[in-house]
């Protein structure tokens, strides 16, 4: 039907980004927050790869950056899981209301 241009990808990645961020803000379960962070990072990946594919740039820096982003977001998630586990040892369930001790 109609061609899929660059802008479609950009809009898609923005929608994913928004979904991810709203998920971060709304989710009660911290594991869901971590997953939403992953969603956001993948949206950014999509952005980079779309730009590299559709425009004739001299360097393919975008794709390389996408690889790095993937790796690093995995690192972040891993550390997030470690921290959640440490908190989980003291409390039964992890919701965002449970970790409200530091306030004021």
């Amino acid at each position, binding site marked *: 039907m109609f061609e899929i241009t660059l802008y479609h990808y*950009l809009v898609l990645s923005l929608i994913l*980004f928004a979904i*991810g*961020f709203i998920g*971060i803000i709304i989710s009660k379960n*911290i594991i869901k*927050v971590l997953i939403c*962070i992953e969603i*956001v*990072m993948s949206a*950014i990946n999509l*952005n*980079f790869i779309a*730009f590299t594919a559709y*425009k004739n*740039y*001299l*360097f393919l*820096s*975008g794709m*390389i*950056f996408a690889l*790095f*982003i993937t790796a*690093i*977001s995995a*690192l*972040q998630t891993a*550390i*997030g899981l470690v*921290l*959640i586990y*440490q*908190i989980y040892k*003291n409390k039964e369930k992890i919701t965002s209301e449970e*970790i409200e*001790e*530091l*306030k*004021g």
Partner: protein
Amino acid sequence: MEIIKDIQSAFLPELILIIFILINIVFSLFIRKNTYRIAKITTISAITLAGLAIFFIQINPTYFAFNEVYISTIYTTSFKIMILISGLLVILSANNFIREKRQKAFEFFTIFLAGILSAFSLISSNDFISAFISIELLSVSCYFLTSFRRNHKAKEAALKYLITGASSSAILLLGISYLYGITGNLNFSNISDAISVSGINIMFIISCILIIIALTFKLGCIPFSNWIIDIYEGSTYGVGTYLSLIPKIAAIGLISRLFVFIFSYSPIIQILTAIIALCSIIYSAIGGIKQTNIKRLYAYSSILHSGFLLLAASCVSVYGFSCLIFYIFTYIFMNIGIWNASIIYTTNYQSDKIIDYKGIFYKNPYFSIAYTICLLSLAGLPPTSGFLSKLYLFSALSREDFTYLIILFLTLCATVISLFLYFKIIKVIYEKNSQDTKIIKNITIGKIILYICSIITILICIYPNEFIKLSQIIAYYI
């Protein structure tokens, strides 16, 4: 062969840090006793050797290493020296980084050095890839350091840090991706060439805004500063000292370089940065009034000074950047001074409340006087160096155009309000109270560092011209 030449000319301090990280990891496998002491010694030697190595790298003319991803100039080298100084002072002053987990000392110091390494590479990065990786490495190191305590609060603080850090990285990446889309390049110099050819459009401005907002996260300005307050309360004092200095210096180094290369094309970003800085100054000045916990007070003061640093960086002129360097240099000593004083106090009496500092002047006069000098310097009163750095900053602001004058006026009001933060502590120290005054004993190195910091604070005020000239020379080479 080019790699070796690159390493020798630009990467040598980082290489030494990597080697010592590896040494720390290897030691952690084999050494069981005296872990804390040996770890401390290796870290201190790492920092000193890296400092020595700085004299061997090429800084003039600018050296582009690793295919123009890594840069080595006088500006970056001075920032690295400041980070090393602050790292050294942090290690020397915090004698009890980790009270409980003695056997995990090597891991702690590994992450410590990794943080410093990432700060180095963040300052010297010339490309968004290396900047992003360095930011992530710095953040991850800080997550670890924050959580290094058996307390539940520390874990919670680290988790908050992680979530906020991740979301800010996401925003940063969004901005970088749009910038990549416009210019097709991730290198600072190439981007700046491309923009100067093609001109600016709305996407450029939006992407720059996203980038700058995400970078102010690391500094701790509005709107990202809420996590800082909780982090400082959750972590130990030594880690708090580390967190209040190293990420900040690294982030402001990167922001100032970005300002020169990319953000200087549109004045909107300058004004926006100045407004963000102003809001964070006002927010922290007013918000800190109700605090009763000393670490939270220090957190609000840290946000306040981040605002000042950002304000200095936002006047994009050689004058503004020399202000920035001078401000950072004086800020290191003041900050180490107050955190050190709290560390000394807390090793004797584990208490986080301001009220417990009541009346320590009458049994420990020299300690209180040194502490007061550092506090007054943070507040910006003469004859301390904080006054001079703020004066210099205000004179730099007054050189810009009209909107900056309004910002200057509001900053002055906020500085007056922020005096209250520091005078809260000072008032409590000098309260006459017959019983309950505590005597501080048996901590020599910490006290020596405190005295050195307070004396340096006053000395900089007596003879500032050398430092100001030096910072002007350095800023010229950005």
